[in-house]
């Protein structure tokens, strides 16, 4: 594992190693000294071309808990607004000695392109509508903590699948880990290629709900929509929103997940979001542990760079 670009690149063993490592590292967040010296002297750049609060802060907290130096770079107010290309920005960061780059970009595939240009480790923190592998890892981690396993779980992912990198990464990772995923959405909010995804598809939330161990609600990403995909917010919410009535029809042990940010009253009602079955805040906490694990596994040991075969620098 040299980079983390796609949840689909992870083998089952690699994914489990990340989850097990995250579990050990979660202890650090409970101690009085919330810090490990492991990444001392390593520099991690958070390269964010899209607005993000929780992911950037989560990566920043994770890197700092491992004692890495963190440089935050947001496209707004930087040389990017003067027209600098991704490649030139990347080469600048490399010249400054970045060992790892965490990239969030609106273009699918941006992280993989970046990995070709820089020598250091690249971690995909969301590339457009394509992938968000650390989100899928923290979701799998949360399922494991709440339900004790991922293998054999029936997971429903509900909502705007078409524009969701979270859905794609989760389908890939959860399938690798042996869960059965069902996507639930109106036909207009499913990606065109969904028949090639390793999962089931349903248009009927009420039919899928009682059979699910995990219900993951997704936000309708209005900012990525250039035409109208459903008649009205009210109708969408009626058919695909999770409210108290629907929650009552779920299995007793089943949990409700949401990657955030939530739009209360749209895909999830406030009552459900605040219920004990909802794991929203746990997902945020777990995100830090999972990202610490990813940073440790990619940057903690010898870094393979072309031309120096993993020698210490």
């Amino acid at each position: 594992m040299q980079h983390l670009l796609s949840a689909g690149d992870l083998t089952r063993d690699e994914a489990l190693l990340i989850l097990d490592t995250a579990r050990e590292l979660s202890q650090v967040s409970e101690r009085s000294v919330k810090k490990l010296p492991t990444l001392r002297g390593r520099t991690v750049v958070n390269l964010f071309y899209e607005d993000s609060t929780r992911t950037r802060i989560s990566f920043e907290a994770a890197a700092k808990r491992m004692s890495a130096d963190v440089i935050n770079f947001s496209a707004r107010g930087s040389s990017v607004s003067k027209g600098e290309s991704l490649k030139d920005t990347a080469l600048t960061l490399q010249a400054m000695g970045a060992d790892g780059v965490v990239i969030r970009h609106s273009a699918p595939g941006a992280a993989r392109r970046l990995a070709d240009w820089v020598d250091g480790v690249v971690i995909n923190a969301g590339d457009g509508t394509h992938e968000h592998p650390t989100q899928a890892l923290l979701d799998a981690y949360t399922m494991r903590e709440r339900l004790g396993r991922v293998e054999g779980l029936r997971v429903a992912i509900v909502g705007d699948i078409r524009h969701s990198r979270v859905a794609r990464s989760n389908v890939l990772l959860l399938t690798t880990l042996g869960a059965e995923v069902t996507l639930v959405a109106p036909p207009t909010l499913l990606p065109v290629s969904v028949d090639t995804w390793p999962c089931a598809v349903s248009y009927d939330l009420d039919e899928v709900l009682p059979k699910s161990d995990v219900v993951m609600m997704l936000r309708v990403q209005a900012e990525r929509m250039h035409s109208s995909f459903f008649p009205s917010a009210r109708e969408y919410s009626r058919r695909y929103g999770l409210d108290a009535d629907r929650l009552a029809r779920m299995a007793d042990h089943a949990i409700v997940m949401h990657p955030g940010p939530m739009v209360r009253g749209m895909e999830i009602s406030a009552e459900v979001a605040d219920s004990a079955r909802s794991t929203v805040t746990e997902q945020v906490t777990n995100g830090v542990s999972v990202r610490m694990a990813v940073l440790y596994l990619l940057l903690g040991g010898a870094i393979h760079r072309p031309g120096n075969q993993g020698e210490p620098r």
Partner: protein
Amino acid sequence: MHAHNHAGGERPDQRRAVLEGPEISRALTRIAHEILERTKGGHDLTLLGIRTGGVPLAQRLAERIERVEQRPVPWGALDITMYRDDLRLAPARALGSTDIPPEGVDGRTVVLVDDVLFSGRTVRAALDALNDLGRPRAVQLAVLVDRGHRELPIRADYVGKNLPTSLRESVTVLLEELHGRDAVLIGPAKPRPGAPESAAATPGGAR
């Protein structure tokens, strides 16, 4: 994992046992008594085994002390992976778990337990790890085998056996709980990753 490979006898003919089960058992019993003597009854004692080889030894010492004093002694496990000084010489390692007994380490006399004392680098890492967990009143070190060749100013308070070795030799400790049999073996050194003098060896493996 490594230990199992070694224990499985990659080159059994080249290794000879210098300690067998009964001698290891007697050495641990003596160390248990020494700990009680030095800590004046061990009322605030906590034993922490360094992963992986030190953990069963810490448990066995705790059992022996309990037998003598008729009261339980808190013991746990310390994983020092994140504090190693040779992390960057190899790909990232899997972590072991750190289990601190509910009494914690603040204000207690912590005895670190390991199987082999060699360069002292593992113990240095353990002291750093302990420092992040709290502030013990005192820290002592118990090892089953001291093979010499220290690279840091570190010594053990309790030693099962001093074993003069050359750097061309490796010392392997086998423990019932991990490898199905108790023994200390000396064999020819295997090439280790990183600097040849680097002492932090595979936990539970040959050192």
